[in-house]
């Protein structure tokens, strides 16, 4: 049995980094080796890793994390408008503001637990979503969405004599434009850093206290721990991860719209985390990759692709198969995702990582009798030995969930 150790964690991080950086090559056979999609894997990976710090470690299920995504996007676009097209100030401001926002929402929501906590977070997120469309229009630009304009002041850029030319300057990282492959590599490196940080949190005494709260919050209290600040810290950290993800969305495409805060987006990150394996290190990244892959690949398949696929069948049968399978692709990709999700939850309640771990154990230790570690904990540690698929499956087509605000 493999033991969790600093060494195994470093191996895990290195393998993860290699998988991310080689993403463009690894994803080639899956037809997804292009930057737009790969960077979406990275961004949602960050979102899900952060969500997992709250849900996976403490068991508190937030249904409102998209609100922080939105705050991150809006504040980054504002930084582009007022400060600089360099992404660094935008990212820092996004993390700070989403953290403050999470502090307020968490402070109130954490007065309750279980379903009441979930409902409170959902209510707050829907409130934010509606406010973004209505009262806050001066900040969010309502339905149109917030955009960067050529005429924006950008005080910091102006100070350093940045161009005020005819063309809107692109978002950049000290001169490197955040489009195409540089955009992906920027997001990829941030993903690697945030993954490393989640390893630190998982292994720290703080992370263990969060797990203990999930296991038996009452016992924690009678053991002398004030559980509220632990939960609030986890909530704020995961809110900042979400803010960072929202910020990167704006970095790679400087727009922000309220639909990013909608409850469907909050639900999506829950699905990603559970699908991959809540409470595991790699699970959320895996889950977000798979969902984004499905969203892009399956939604792009149309009838002609299906006819080709079933071409080997006699014509009548081909028609039947095309009709049948067309239910699951294109607009119907949600059906496929729903089925996958149901299968995973019913047969692998610990998510795909649990399945991977089961396979792995059968291979390496034929009769596992030890009760030393729970399945969940194994997953956490042994991921180091068998780094799962790279965080990214690939795909063509543009995601509908991410549709840009109409102009």
């Amino acid at each position: 049995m493999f033991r969790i150790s600093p060494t195994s964690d470093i191996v895990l991080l290195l393998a993860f980094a290699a998988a991310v950086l080689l993403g463009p090559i690894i994803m080639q056979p899956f037809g997804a080796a292009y930057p737009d999609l790969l960077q979406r894997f990275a961004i949602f990976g960050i979102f899900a890793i952060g969500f997992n710090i709250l849900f996976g470690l403490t068991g508190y299920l937030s249904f409102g994390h998209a609100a922080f995504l939105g705050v991150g996007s809006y504040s980054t676009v504002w930084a582009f408008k007022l400060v600089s097209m360099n992404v660094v100030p935008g990212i820092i401001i996004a993390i700070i503001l989403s953290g403050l926002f999470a502090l307020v929402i968490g402070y109130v929501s954490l007065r309750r637990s279980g379903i009441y906590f979930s409902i409170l977070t959902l209510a707050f997120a829907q409130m934010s979503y509606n406010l973004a469309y209505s009262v806050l229009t001066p900040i969010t630009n309502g339905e149109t969405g917030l955009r960067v304009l050529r005429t924006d002041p950008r005080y910091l850029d102006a100070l350093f004599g940045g161009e005020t030319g005819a063309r809107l300057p692109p978002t950049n990282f000290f001169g490197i434009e955040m489009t195409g492959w540089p955009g992906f590599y920027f997001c990829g490196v941030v993903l690697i850093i945030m993954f490393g940080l989640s390893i630190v949190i998982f292994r720290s005494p703080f992370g263990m206290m969060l797990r203990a709260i999930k296991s038996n919050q009452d016992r924690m209290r009678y053991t002398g721990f004030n559980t509220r600040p632990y939960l609030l810290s986890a909530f704020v950290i995961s809110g900042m991860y979400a803010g960072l993800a929202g910020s990167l969305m704006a970095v790679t495409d400087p727009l922000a719209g309220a639909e990013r805060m909608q409850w469907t987006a909050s639900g999506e990150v829950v699905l990603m985390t559970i699908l991959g394996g809540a409470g595991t290190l790699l699970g959320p990244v895996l889950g977000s990759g798979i969902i984004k892959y499905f969203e892009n690949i399956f939604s792009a398949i149309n009838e002609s692709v299906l006819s080709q696929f079933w071409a080997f069948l006699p014509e009548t049968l081909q028609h039947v198969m095309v009709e049948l399978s067309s239910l699951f692709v294109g607009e119907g990709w949600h059906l496929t995702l729903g089925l996958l999700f149901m299968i995973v939850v019913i047969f692998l309640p610990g998510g795909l990582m649990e399945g991977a771990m089961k396979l792995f154990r059968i291979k390496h230790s034929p009769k596992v009798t030890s009760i030393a570690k729970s399945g969940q904990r194994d997953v956490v540690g042994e991921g180091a030995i068998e780094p799962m698929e790279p965080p990214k499956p690939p795909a063509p087509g543009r995601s509908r969930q991410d549709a840009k605000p109409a102009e």
Partner: protein
Amino acid sequence: MDSPLLHIDNVHKHFAGLHALSDINLDIRPQETHAIIGPNGAGKSTLLNVCVGRLAPSQGKVLFAGTELTGRHPHEINQLGVARVFQTPELFEDLTVVENVMIPIFSRKDGAFSLSLASRFDKQGAIADKAMSILADVGLGDHVNHLTNALSRGDKRRLELAMCLVQDPKLLLLDEPTAGMARADTNATIDLLNEIKKTGVTIVIIEHDMHVVFSLADRISVLAGGRIIAQGPPEEIKGNPKVIEAYLGEEQV
């Protein structure tokens, strides 16, 4: 006589018309081992719940070393030095045995909250050693890396006791710490508690097993129907006709 370590003053507890505790006055002296006995439903566990902040008394108050406990949060009461073993073990069931015992050490070391991210939980030499040695004391030395929910009922009780002992409490509240244990384990627990007594820890123990009670208790309070009906040293309680009627009668025939 010393002032009491735990002073329970005129405590009442009602549950929707049920008088679980009525006018309880009880002083626990420093360093004594005080047994609370009584039939099922007498209110023994309720009394401990009032002490540790799980329940608020309907009336009255509880003082610990002169500090009022009523109205305080459970974690504050624990930080003052009160540790409790519950009637139904409260453990971190999906963590390992040694992790269960290490966690309480952190609440002594770091207080009620600490954002400790700079170290690793699995690289805590001194803390792990301390946990191991307590586990050896309670007889769980062979189970340190087992998952807690796989332990037997008796082992769970011993683990919960270890989780309290590792905090070096001033006052130890035990709710039936030997229920579900085999005879040999019960005797081992009696020996262990006698060792702990010698270190000056004050103990309140609720117990149905009279062998345990008479092996440990300096004084006994008998609770029946939410009232204290008798109190005194073991010899006195043994011969008290009221007690025999209310409780011992059924067992000692």
